[in-house]
């Protein structure tokens, strides 16, 4: 994974609350065995008609939205299914951050593991940005993870929190598995003290 560096981008507003991961990427696109190439399936049922032609009214299909890297979402973004295909599709499309007031737990964890920054802002700050974008759709936001802030064109900044461990992983471009593998002695000690509860490979099994 690439280290997460500061960037600036115009935003794609998609302000519905409770957007679930079935909307982010419908289940029929989950029959894959790799993580790449899912950007075209992002928001598929909102983005395309059944015959594959684009729905012109959907925000991602407006020509000026092309290349924008920040999704401005409504509350509780990423509800429902645990599919990591949701952040894979968002990243595959080109998004690097989603700005909301809150995220569903599993989606948030999945996003952080894929270099997609979930930025949860207080409702007032989020509402302020939404109003600014409504007034001027070409407003550009600057995202600085190291400083923990989103900077607005008027020079003001809004702070956001990411848990320190995930923040470090993103800034370094590393993943959690290396950290977990380094704990193997502690895991072995735990296993010695806590015998297994079941043996799925035993004869009674599958």
């Amino acid at each position: 994974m690439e280290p997460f560096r500061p960037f600036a981008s115009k935003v794609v507003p998609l302000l519905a609350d409770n957007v679930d991961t079935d909307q982010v990427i419908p289940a029929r696109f989950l029959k894959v065995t790799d993580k790449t190439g899912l950007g075209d399936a992002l928001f598929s049922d909102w983005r395309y008609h059944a015959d594959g032609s684009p729905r012109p009214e959907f925000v991602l299909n407006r020509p000026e939205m092309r290349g924008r890297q920040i999704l401005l979402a409504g509350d509780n973004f990423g509800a429902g299914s645990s599919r990591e295909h949701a952040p894979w599709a968002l990243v595959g499309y080109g998004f690097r951050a989603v700005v909301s007031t809150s995220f569903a737990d599993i989606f948030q964890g999945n996003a952080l593991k894929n270099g997609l920054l979930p930025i949860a802002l207080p409702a007032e700050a989020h509402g302020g940005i939404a109003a600014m974008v409504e007034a001027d759709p070409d407003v550009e936001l600057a995202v600085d993870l190291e400083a923990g802030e989103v900077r607005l064109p008027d020079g003001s900044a809004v702070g956001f929190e990411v848990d320190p461990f995930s923040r470090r992983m993103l800034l370094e471009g590393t993943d959690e598995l290396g950290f977990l593998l380094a704990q193997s002695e502690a895991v072995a000690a735990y296993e010695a003290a806590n015998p297994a509860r079941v043996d799925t490979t035993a004869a009674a099994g599958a």
Partner: protein
Amino acid sequence: MASPRTLFAKLWDRHVVVEQPGLPTVLYIDLHLVHEVTSPQAFAGLAARRLKVRRPDLTLATVDHSIPTHDRSLPIADELAATQIRQLEKNCAEHGIPLAGMHSPNQGIVHVIGPELGITQPGMTIVCGDSHTSTHGALGALAFGIGTSEVEHVLATQTLLQRRPKAYEVRVEGRLAPGVAAKDIILALLARIGVGGGTGHVFEYTGPAVRALSMEQRMTICNMSIEGGARAGMVAPDDTTFSYVAGRPFAPKGGDWDRALADWRSLPTDEGATYDKSVTLDAGALEPMITYGTNPGMGMPITGRIPDPAQAADSATRQALDKALTYMALRPGEPLVGQPVDVVFIGSCTNSRISDLRQAARMLQGGKVAPGVRVLVVPGSQDVKRQAEVEGLADVFRAAGAEWRESGCSMCIAMNGDELRPGQYAVSTSNRNFEGRQGAGGRTFLASPLTAAATALAGRITDPRTVVAASEGVSA
């Protein structure tokens, strides 16, 4: 003496491997369930780092999401699904992971077979790359869904990095009235707290109404915890739990059973322990519930009327309701009873166990599915299927004109060809009414197996109590 703790706190504490200030906890996982859809990229990640599966003996795989539920002797027509299933077979063989494959007598929906085999036990931590892993919490386990990166972490290390969630008590007083089911309790909770109400929390369901529920009813409730935003939902283990587990293939035996039982009896929340949040429902006041919208929190009593966006408390709620009713092609202020449906789906990890099928069969016994309505009955596992056939339930379904199918997720997630056509209405015993969930353009009403079966007979949404009254004694 130690301070009183909740069930959740006890389970969390005993699974901590490493805890350091400023870092998430390294949490030990007792059981990892794996299926074909969310695992291939995790195994590929292991291969890329030349890692082995640390504990194949704490791992169990099955195929459920994308497998066909028609004749299993035929090859899988969908090449992508077939590839995914072959990939899982290959990965399991390579790493020594037991697989309840397509032709195994143990195949089934992952959240049905864990409890059924006795592999799911009180006090365990259980994860799976599937958000409905919360189901297993019904047995007093801490069970939650994970993403594919985390599947890879558990395969490689048998641990996960986790931040400690908060504890949320969902207390259910009173007793369910006849014709009202466990499904109605959870749909009522979701209507009350919304789909984000439990974010950052683990639900513990308590109170006399929960104590009175069977193990399978508790699974229905815990299953949909995630629909309230809670990754896990739990019920403290009691004699109902212990008698459910006893004698199952993987349950402890002899002296091991006695030791396990003594341990399990220490798990329930201590007197005086506090929760971070709580809500109370009165089971006695509940009616059968049905959803009208496009998330599981958009539900109402079946005798209710569809809410009017114009009367919404705020603009976000109004817009969400407007959008949902447009998608559903429903009008505010109208009742849902009498609404014609095209399909009835009885199945999914929420409601596909033997007790669910018994309820549906009792309702359909001697009756006929309404003309033009397609009814799919999809057992949760091969074991449920065999049992339903022995009991004659399958004959009841077939005689009524319903399709009796092979076990799998089927039309709950519509990955295997079992799907709604655009614009069709379905009453479904599954867990999600999201746009397109049961097929692009399909429209879903979530309800209990009783409501689904009553609707199948009438071809229109039907309050099961009006049918119950006629045939007497069908209780939830």
